[in-house]
């Protein structure tokens, strides 16, 4: 890890320190809020970390999240008995959608940006064909997952920690993780080294799909209803978090910890700007400047677009 790769932690620490000066910020409840609010984005960003590390990109996760939110709430309709079925439904749908994207990626050989731009549009069409307004209700267990507490600690951040740890171990300690890095670092060379690059790519898209499932469950639990626009824009926020976290958009270099730190940074920024009562227009400017500042400090890669 190079020094510049740690930029995000410095930025995060600075913002945290500055935030500490605001009295309301220091309450534990507020901190738990920030962590809970950021959970869904964090999960999506974890999935996107795999995809981007592999040198790919997945724009479809936002709408996939939306689809899952709508389906989970509508199918469950608030009934607790439906918890297990909708969990399976969500995970199955996410994995299935990811598998299809992976398959199309390997077969059609379209740039993943265009491919997932297309699947994003298709998924959006499906969501809105299904419903154009909020439907159903999330079962209590899923609401608990998103908003509840376990032994006094908020559940969603715990889940994120668990998933992040899993993702970290997978990426750094398993053969699959190394292959993800390798394929991202140069797919022709990885293939020459005997790696089945197609399989790695497909798996990575499945992981991204599953992360959309979990993210969708968290959003469903938090909103309580199946809001069809629920996932809009998540894909971009996730990509921003991943890249701010030091993962190179060309693939091959990056880390889970950086992604998590970047998600926290984004969540904190929102929270702090709100607490400071800054007008939302100025907030927008400040957020833009923070993103610019963070990427300048962090510098995850070369001078390329996708770096």
């Amino acid at each position: 890890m190079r020094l510049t790769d740690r930029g995000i932690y410095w930025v995060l620490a600075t913002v945290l320190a500055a935030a500490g000066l605001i009295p309301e910020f220091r309450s534990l409840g507020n901190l738990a809020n920030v962590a809970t609010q950021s959970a869904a984005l964090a999960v999506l960003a974890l999935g996107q970390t795999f995809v981007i590390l592999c040198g790919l990109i997945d724009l479809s996760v936002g709408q996939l999240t939306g689809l899952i939110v709508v389906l989970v709430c509508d199918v469950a309709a608030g009934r607790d008995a439906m918890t297990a079925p909708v969990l399976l439904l969500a995970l199955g749908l996410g994995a299935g959608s990811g598998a299809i994207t992976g398959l199309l990626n390997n077969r059609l050989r379209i740039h993943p940006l265009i491919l997932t731009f297309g699947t994003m549009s298709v998924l959006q069409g499906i969501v809105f064909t299904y419903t154009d307004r909020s439907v159903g209700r999330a079962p209590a267990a899923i609401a608990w997952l998103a908003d509840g507490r376990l032994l006094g600690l908020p559940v969603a951040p715990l889940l994120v920690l668990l998933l992040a740890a899993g993702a970290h171990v997978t990426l750094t300690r398993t053969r699959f993780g190394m292959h993800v890095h390798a394929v991202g670092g140069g797919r022709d060379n990885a293939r020459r080294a005997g790696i089945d690059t197609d399989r790695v790519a497909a798996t990575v898209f499945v992981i991204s799909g599953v992360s959309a499932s979990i993210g969708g469950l968290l959003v469903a639990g938090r909103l309580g209803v199946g809001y069809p626009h629920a996932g809009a824009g998540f894909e971009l926020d996730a990509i921003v978090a991943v890249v701010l976290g030091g993962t190179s958009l060309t693939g091959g270099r990056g880390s889970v910890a950086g992604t998590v730190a970047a998600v926290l940074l984004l969540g904190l920024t929102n929270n702090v700007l709100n607490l400071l009562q800054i007008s939302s227009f100025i907030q927008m400017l400040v957020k833009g400047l923070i993103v610019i500042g963070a990427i300048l400090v962090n510098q995850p890669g070369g001078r390329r677009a996708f770096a």
Partner: protein
Amino acid sequence: MAFLEIRGLSKTFPGATALDGVDLSAEGGEVHALVGANGAGKSTLMLVLAGVLSPTAGEIRLAGVPVAFSTPRAAMEAGVSIVYQETSALPEMTVAENIFLGREPTTRLGLVDRRRLYEETRRLLDRYHLPLDPAAQVGRLTVAGQQLVEIARALSIAARVLILDEPTAVLSLAEQRNLFDIIAGLRGPRLLILYVSHRLEEIFTIADRITVLRDGRKVTTVATADLRQADLVRLMVGHEVRERVPLPAPAGAPPLLEARLTGNPPRLEVRGGEILGFAGLVGAGRSRLGRSLAGLDPIDLRLDGRPVRLRSPADALAHGIVYLTEDRKREGLFDNLSVLVNATAAALPSLSRFGVVRLAVERRAGAAILERLRLVARSLAAPVRELSGGNQQKVIFGRALLCRPRILVCDEPTRGVDVGAKDEIYDLLLELARQGVAIVLISSELKEVLALSHRVLVMRDGAAVREFTGGEANEQDVLLAAMGSLPGAA
């Protein structure tokens, strides 16, 4: 039945036939060399064997069994391992990770066993005396270092066939020798080594038999013992190569270029019309010196006796200093752009007027220089990545010439170039010198340095250790100086 039996193998690319019905048979236990001019089809043949390319037609049998590798992995599993001509290591990963990529040792939990990974790498590197740090990031190694990683990787695969595609082109003497030792040690009845090189001395040293390819067809297979080098050259390029005439040194004109050096001599001086050769082992610092002359690193420099500061290669070019890189893949080629655009990339200012490129002038200039270098390409508009390695080298050499240099710094100018074209490049260098260009020649082919240079400067560990003038340089002394054991050397 032969150990490896290839029959009627053909490979066509859109617009080019790289292999055209090649037959080849080789035995276990032999080192079988493959030679031929640039673009003859050697690499293509090796890539087919390694499962990277699928053949258009033909059959391959290994130990009598027909094989058709659809992926490199399949070839690896069948015991075919390869060192590619162009390095294929992953720059973001460490040496150890690269060597065992796809075959990482795991613990019982299914996690990668990092300790074993590094231990095994260490053991492998020690066994073959490869000077690499298992934990180093490959992207930070020199080309030579990367090549050693490739070699280590190929060696770590218990192979039935070991393919080496110009392994020595980027290595310098010590590594070359080490590699030959390794090859000698590996020889055994169950291993076939296929060896591609343009360095004929090497081939005569290690190969048992030689197959000559020309234009994608096999010319012949002969036993090394039955052949003289000159015959081989004739077989390859269809004519004989002249001996170089040593040059008269230019009379005591003032130096065109001076630079401060560490060590002895403390200064580098080159006169117009002079060729200054650099010799040294890998990592001796010759390339770094060349790069600073190109404006990539700061250096104390005088041009025509006046101090100048170069802040960028653009500055250097403006002063007439042209640098030909040794790392053609990473900082030489514009992979996806056409041959012509690659050749004229550095000469655009002189080829354009009011910011508009004069396309016809550009095409004429590019075509002229590339023809002179005997470029083999299906068209000037073909992407340069389609060219064989040697032809790519000719393109970037052509690029340097098109800049009309006053001072030409060539780092490994003939890397991967066939004997015929080498000949041409030597002629061109001599001609430039005759026209008054000052030439700095960095090369790991000692013969080349000795044959062309007026003076030879030997470097070791980043410092100059000795300068030989005129006829005083010979292979033995230069080598000893480079390795630091010649009495009188600093």
